[in-house]
């Protein structure tokens, strides 16, 4: 519901979406195949009828975007605002990407290139938009995106090694909308890493993206994702993975960048026997708000999911996690687990943890757990009594805490980079 001018629950600088984006929407239609125009128009209507969320909306509690002024940001509808670099690593330990070309039929490209070179495939794959109903910030990129990442793996193609996609988005003074798709046909398998970055800037910008991950029967995806936007940027993202019968997903997410970020991460277990393992690492530091909203929806029998999200909060950082497991009446024999652990390093740190279970079937095993605590003084004492300085001991404990959610990442290089990035925050 649209909020009124004086609502105490208003969360953004303006009470409603900028009217100028309507013009940007019309410009953007030129980027899209004519077959998909009606879909974009529906998404535009959806965004404007929903309006901006407010703080009464449960999943937006504790968020504040008052300093985000949409009116001052430029939307580049006519030019592409995303730079993609694809690297192919042979194995998880390789330092250097290999140059071998990808198998026939595999497509890894930007949305703009996808339309140019794979028009029919683009229309087929993008005809359905699973995310448009997820809320205003899912409907907006559904209407306004002029770019994004497109990954398509044909039937039974099993890619060894790791494909890393570095996505640079020049966000300064811009509002960028992106629509991305990862599509695995039946029996396909892929290891994929997405690294979202933006150049440092004083003023920052706003990134709003959707990522639609679709796994056909018996396909398998290992997806590593790192959100490393510049600290001045705002970021809202919706990512949903739909799993068909027998498909497998391992999804690791590291929230590192952005000043204020809110990401919805959802696994839809639609096919019998599908399984999803979700790991997440969050390390908000001074003035940073990292808000992750996870859902594990079990729609089919004998499905499995296990989620482990960990957060270390330093200085005045704020970590917010909302998690939900839903088990449909159809989803008997489901196993679903959910854990959120928070380590607090500073008096000013702020942690909100909201786990949830909604269970509509009885023959299930479901549990969740959440903890909030500081570094265990006994662990610290033990290490210090072995001659390790307090500072070093604290670092070791934090590293140990994080390792559980960093080690599942595929590339050794990524694990190191993540740990270095996180540990560098302990030095400051």
């Amino acid at each position, binding site marked *: 519901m649209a909020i009124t001018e004086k609502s105490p629950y208003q969360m953004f600088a303006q009470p409603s979406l900028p009217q100028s984006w309507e013009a940007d929407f019309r410009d953007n239609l030129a980027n899209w195949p004519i077959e998909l125009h009606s879909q974009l128009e529906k998404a535009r209507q959806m965004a404007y009828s929903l309006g901006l969320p407010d703080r009464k909306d449960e999943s937006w509690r504790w968020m504040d975007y008052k300093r985000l002024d949409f009116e001052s940001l430029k939307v580049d509808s006519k030019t592409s605002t995303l730079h993609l670099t694809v690297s192919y690593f042979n194995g998880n330990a390789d330092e250097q990407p290999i140059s071998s070309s990808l198998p026939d039929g595999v497509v890894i490209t930007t949305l703009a290139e996808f339309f140019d070179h794979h028009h029919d495939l683009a229309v087929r794959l993008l005809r359905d938009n699973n995310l448009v109903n997820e809320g205003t910030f899912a409907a907006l990129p559904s209407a306004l995106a002029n770019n994004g990442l497109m990954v398509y793996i044909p039937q039974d193609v099993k890619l060894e090694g790791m494909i890393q996609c570095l996505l640079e988005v020049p966000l300064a003074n811009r509002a960028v909308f992106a629509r991305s798709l990862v599509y695995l046909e039946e029996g396909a398998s892929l290891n994929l890493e997405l690294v979202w970055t933006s150049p440092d800037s004083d003023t920052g910008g706003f990134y709003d993206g959707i990522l639609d991950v679709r796994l056909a029967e018996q396909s398998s995806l290992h997806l590593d994702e790192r959100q490393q936007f510049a600290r001045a940027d705002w970021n809202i993202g919706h990512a949903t993975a739909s799993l068909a019968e027998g498909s497998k997903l391992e999804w690791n997410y590291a929230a590192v960048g952005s000043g204020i970020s809110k990401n919805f991460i959802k696994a839809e277990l639609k096919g019998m026997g599908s399984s999803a393992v979700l790991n997440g690492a969050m390390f908000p530091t001074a003035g940073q708000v990292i808000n992750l909203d996870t859902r594990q929806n079990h729609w089919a029998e004998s499905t499995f999911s296990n989620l482990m999200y960990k957060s270390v909060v330093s200085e005045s950082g704020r970590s917010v996690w909302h998690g939900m497991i839903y088990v449909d009446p159809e989803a008997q024999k489901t196993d679903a687990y959910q854990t959120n652990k928070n380590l*607090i390093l500073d008096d000013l740190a702020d942690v*909100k943890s909201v786990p*949830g279970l909604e*269970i509509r079937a*009885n023959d299930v095993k479901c549990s*969740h757990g959440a*903890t909030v605590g500081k570094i265990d003084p006994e662990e610290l004492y033990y290490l210090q009594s072995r001659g390790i300085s307090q500072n070093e001991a604290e670092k070791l404990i934090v590293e140990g805490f994080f390792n559980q959610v960093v080690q599942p990442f595929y590339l050794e290089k990524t694990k190191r980079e993540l740990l270095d990035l996180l540990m560098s925050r302990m030095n400051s």
Partner: protein
Amino acid sequence: MANSSEKNILSNLGDSYEYGFSDPDRSSFKSRKGLDEEVVRQISAIKQEPQWMLDFRLKAYHHFIQRPMPGWGPDLSGLNLDEIYFYVRPEEIDQKSWEDVPESIKNTFERLGIPEAEQKYLAGVGAQYDSEMVYHNINEHLEKQGVVFLSIENGLKQYPDLFREYFSTVVPIQDNKFAALNSAVWSGGSFVYVPKGIKVDLPLQAYFRLNIASIGQFERTLIIADEGSQVHYVEGCTAPTYTTESYHSGVIEIVVKKDARVRYSTIQNWSTNVYNLVTQRASVFENGTMEWVDANLGSKVTMKYPSCFLRGEGAHGEMLSVAFAGPGQIQDAGSKMVHFASNTSSKITSKSISRGNGQSSYRGLVKVARGLENVRSNVVCDALLLDPESRTDTWPTIDSGSLDVNIGHEASVSKVGEEQLFYLTSRGLSEEEATTMIVSGFIEPLVKELPMEYAVEMNKLIQLQMVGSVG
């Protein structure tokens, strides 16, 4: 379980609600249906209240009108406040001698076993019939020690200063829509004061009964446990089964002073046409302990989240709850532990059972204010699902603004184990008996915290809920 008396109970069980009988409506005064300022003034005038209380009621009424219905939780659209009698005064009220209670009302409570219970187990009894307390009594030796156990109206009359000092300090008008409504039209409930250092060794009991159809009961209870004192208060609730919805919306305020200890136990067994929307909260000061023991078995919809505001260092809050949602029932229960002081601790243990299309939920909050030291909280929720139609939800929230905390939450959902069932049925128990036994074992931790009389009652109620659960 296989002793003969319980077998008798089981074999005598019909499918109906045991307390579903009703007496003829003999009320001496009924407000008209619905609510406006005039009804509020009328209630206050009948009770001959001081001006400040009328002002308080009117202020609450206006807040209630402005406040929207909660945008979360169970569907309350079946609750039509225009069709509710907000105040119903029985023939005679607040007698100290059981003999003086009118015959019809006495019969009701005798059928519920109240006087018998009083003799055996209790330090004092209060009984509320529709909107007013009809009976209040307390053991003489406690009275001599200065323990006060009165209807809330008499509390206001006899201890005006003490009353005013604490009334609405724990649950302010603005807390929620239903607390505002209660503040506007409250009637009945208990006023308890336990002086410094006095330990009341037997429980005080209040029994709540709704008799007529379409009634709203808005009891207000204020318990003040002075420094170093100790008291256990037990409430039980029943109502006849009518086709129209009734409404119960109590506000319970408890002040636990330094080193004091209060336990408040509820066996809620309203008939399944009662909306039960209750605000229960305790303010706990230095080294005080508050324990809520809460069993929700009846009602159509219950929304109830007893809470502890831990305001003094060393304060401890505890919640032990069981909810049983049978067909058509929603038990939306939970607890809030809010830590405002260092060295405070809290513990929540919640167990729920769902059967048929019954829906039980845990909705909870553990909140730690900024800059505190050594705060501990532990939350454990277990849900048992008895058949494919039943459902359960768990929505806890942890909100921590301090460094030196240790908060844990865990929840699990399971069904009755096939192996357990097989074992018991192979020993000659029917499947229903076996399931009942497993359920009884599941809620054992709560039952053993209740006074004996209530533990027996509780087991009986669980067996009632389980009738027809198999096949």
